[in-house]
């Protein structure tokens, strides 16, 4: 393992830690989306690091482009759902989401 790959790995682990910590402590649904975005940045960085380590950067780049497309669609749909919830309940907190039984 090279020093550069190790540094990338540390960066990925830290980004994951930030995303998971934020997911655990936040109650705002838009903030949940921001945390998911941070987690996705970690995945993207990991793909670039693995592409560098294996010498297959072109393949990694193709995967990164796919992930970016998935990320955008996820965010667009999730933001729409959050705004729909906001219109229904007047707030965007996780504990205000109605359960199916309600």
């Amino acid at each position, binding site marked *: *393992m*090279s*020093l*550069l*790959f*190790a540094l*990338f*790995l*540390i*960066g990925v*682990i*830290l*980004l994951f*830690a*930030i*995303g998971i*910590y*934020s997911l655990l*402590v936040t109650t*705002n649904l*838009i*903030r949940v989306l*921001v*945390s998911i*975005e*941070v987690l996705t*940045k970690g995945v*993207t*960085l990991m793909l*670039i690091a693995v*592409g*560098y380590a294996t010498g297959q*950067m*072109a393949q*990694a*780049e*193709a995967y*990164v*482009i*796919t992930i*970016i*497309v*998935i*990320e*955008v*669609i996820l*965010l*667009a*749909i999730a*933001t*729409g*759902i*959050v*705004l*729909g919830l*906001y*219109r229904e309940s*007047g*707030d*965007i907190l996780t504990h205000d989401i109605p359960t199916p039984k309600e």
Partner: protein
Amino acid sequence: MNLTILVILLIGLVASAVVCVALSDLLKAAIALAITSAILSIIMFLMGAPLAAVFELSVCAGMITVVFISACSMSRIYTRKEHEQRQKARNRRFLLLPALLVALAVVVFLVLSPHITGVSPIPSGGSGSGVQAALWGSRQVDLIGQIILILTGVYGVIVFFKEKEADGK
């Protein structure tokens, strides 16, 4: 190219991600997320992935920021006093995070250090033709999936905006 630049960029990436999740103001958080994406795209460019870097910069730093800012503009606006209270509460919740991250980085580095064999050179130049071959040659299924996803996303956005217009009426 210097390894130091890459290390500084990685530290900047992690720092902007921390700022992004710790800020109480959603607008500032969206801008911090855009900065995170911009730094990530610079790292991608330096690592020899220019096409992915352009996608990251235009889509993640541009479009996603616009989506977040529009979502913020449609949600509740807090008064200055409420905002200060929320920021204080948020600061308390995120007080531990920097210390936790530093400890985690040290532990991971200590675990990985026996396996580090040397410093590999940072690649120079892009892989434009390689990406084309990878995307169009071996990842056609991914492309079809991406097209379906984009159409789904467009349909979803149309549905949500239609509901909003109906509510407005």
